């Protein structure tokens, strides 16, 4: 496994007394997709949310261990969480476009981060939408409300929005589970395309999806990391019997 600048070190996440994520050390290699799989409640979403400190919003959540991104300990008090989050895009299970126009959804982040030039913003909007494979569908109605889009379009818009601030890392929390099959395959193609530029971590319930798009797979069970390896190995020759049972669909 190649060395990387994005990794966790003995990471544990507590909700009050409950330890939802237990002592997990994981590497996320650049230009690759890592899939987090495991039965519901196994802590994979909690783990994902701690990578960009989304758990800060939950007052009783506590973190032990370290998360390193480009040599920076993200939970260090000196770390500026707002700057940190610019480097890490996130997309959720349910599409959550802003109640704004399609154009504004994409331009909002870059504008806030200091890009004022209209032409440059237009370029960012176009390139982000193109990367999210949405440009052709919406280029004639950029001024319309984002909520007028279909669910699949909204989700790709959310991906485009995440890309608009040039993140190095993209966190995806079951991004296709609420979508129809056509939209799902579009999103999957997109992920494969995007990994050329950034590291992607994806939580998924869908084994086929993990097998199709990821380079590495981590299997979580009850908050512990049971197995982590190249996806091909996990799906063909897992070391752990439980992993074998889970991916073959015998439980979970």
């Amino acid at each position, binding site marked *: 496994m190649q060395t990387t600048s994005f990794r966790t070190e003995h990471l544990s996440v507590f909700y009050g007394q409950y330890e939802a994520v237990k002592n997990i050390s994981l590497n996320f290699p650049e230009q690759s997709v890592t899939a987090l799989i495991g039965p519901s409640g196994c802590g994979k979403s909690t783990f994902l949310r701690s990578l960009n400190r989304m758990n800060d919003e939950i007052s009783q959540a506590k973190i032990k261990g370290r998360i390193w991104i480009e040599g920076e300990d993200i939970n260090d008090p000196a770390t*500026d969480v*707002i*700057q940190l989050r*610019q480097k890490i895009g996130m997309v959720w299970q349910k599409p959550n476009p802003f109640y704004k126009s399609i154009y504004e959804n994409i331009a909002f982040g*870059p504008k*806030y*981060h*200091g*890009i004022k030039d209209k032409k*440059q913003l237009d*370029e*960012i909007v176009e*390139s982000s939408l193109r990367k999210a494979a949405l440009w052709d569908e919406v280029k004639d109605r950029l001024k319309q409300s984002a909520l007028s889009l279909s669910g699949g379009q909204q989700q790709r818009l959310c991906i485009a929005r995440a890309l608009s*601030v*040039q993140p190095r890392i993209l966190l995806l929390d079951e991004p296709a589970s609420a979508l129809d099959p056509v939209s799902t395959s579009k999103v999957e193609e997109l992920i494969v395309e995007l990994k050329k530029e950034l590291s992607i971590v994806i939580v998924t319930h869908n084994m086929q999806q993990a097998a199709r798009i990821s380079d590495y797979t981590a299997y979580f069970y009850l908050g512990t990391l049971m197995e982590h390896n190249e996806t091909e190995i996990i799906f063909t020759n897992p070391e752990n019997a439980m992993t074998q049972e889970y991916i073959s669909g015998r439980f979970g």
Partner: protein
Amino acid sequence: MKAMDERPVQVGSARSARFKKHHAEDLAGRSYTFICVALLIVIIISIIYFVASKGLATFFRDGVSLGDFLFGTTWDPEGNQGEPMYGVLPFIFGSFATSLLAALIASPLSICASLFMTEIVPGWGKKLLQPVIELLAGIPSVVYGFIGLTVVVPFMRNVFPGQGIGIAAGALVLSVMILPTITSVASDALSSLPRGLKESSFALGATRWQTISRVILPTVLPSILTGVVLGMARAFGEALAVQMVIGNAPHIPRSLFESASTLTSVITLDMGNTVMGSTHSNALWSMALALMFMTFIFVLIVRLLERRHRI
């Protein structure tokens, strides 16, 4: 893709400029909202302080005894019959009598209305009554007073002995005014009941009324009582509508159809005719203090009921 190559540099340089801006922005936002909240607290503390300091002056500076004030039955602040007397028992009685009676009239009606909206005809019942209740809540109290004066008082005069004014007229007007309060609290409670509760009762072969009276009402009783107390609090503090129909005589009436007064009605009428700092004026402030004290009691009861409800 050409723009792509340039952007990281620009975003990077923009980032350091943003560093201070987003912290400053957050600080400003947090301060602004906090100041607003702090202002609320300053307001309430100053209301309590000023009303209490004025209201207590009656006893500490003017030497009126608390017992004479609370239990005295003669209100003669100008001393028309010799010594000035500051007995406010008639007004306390009037306030309690009107608000209790109003709650007594309004509660059954409100409970029926909320049952109608949630249990009897949940669909159009709500569509019909919801706006009715909201409009009743929206009618200004002086308009209620005006209608009380032109409809309720003449009606009372024709049907009952006396002049028509009095506690009965006041309570009737107030009951319509507090109907919306009780109804909305009660119907919120009813509509938040779990479905299973009702269905299991129906499944046992109970009629709708049996279900309502034995299962539903006992469950939501604390909430309904909360509504009743909130309604009473509103009735207790209402000034103008009551003042217009109650007659404003400063003694305990012998019947519900005889002129009387409440704490609020006396304050309304007398405050403009007293000199600030006089004992008469301070006695009015003491009545305001009593009103404030009752507000605390009402809020306390509501809190206790809510706590019970949660368990």
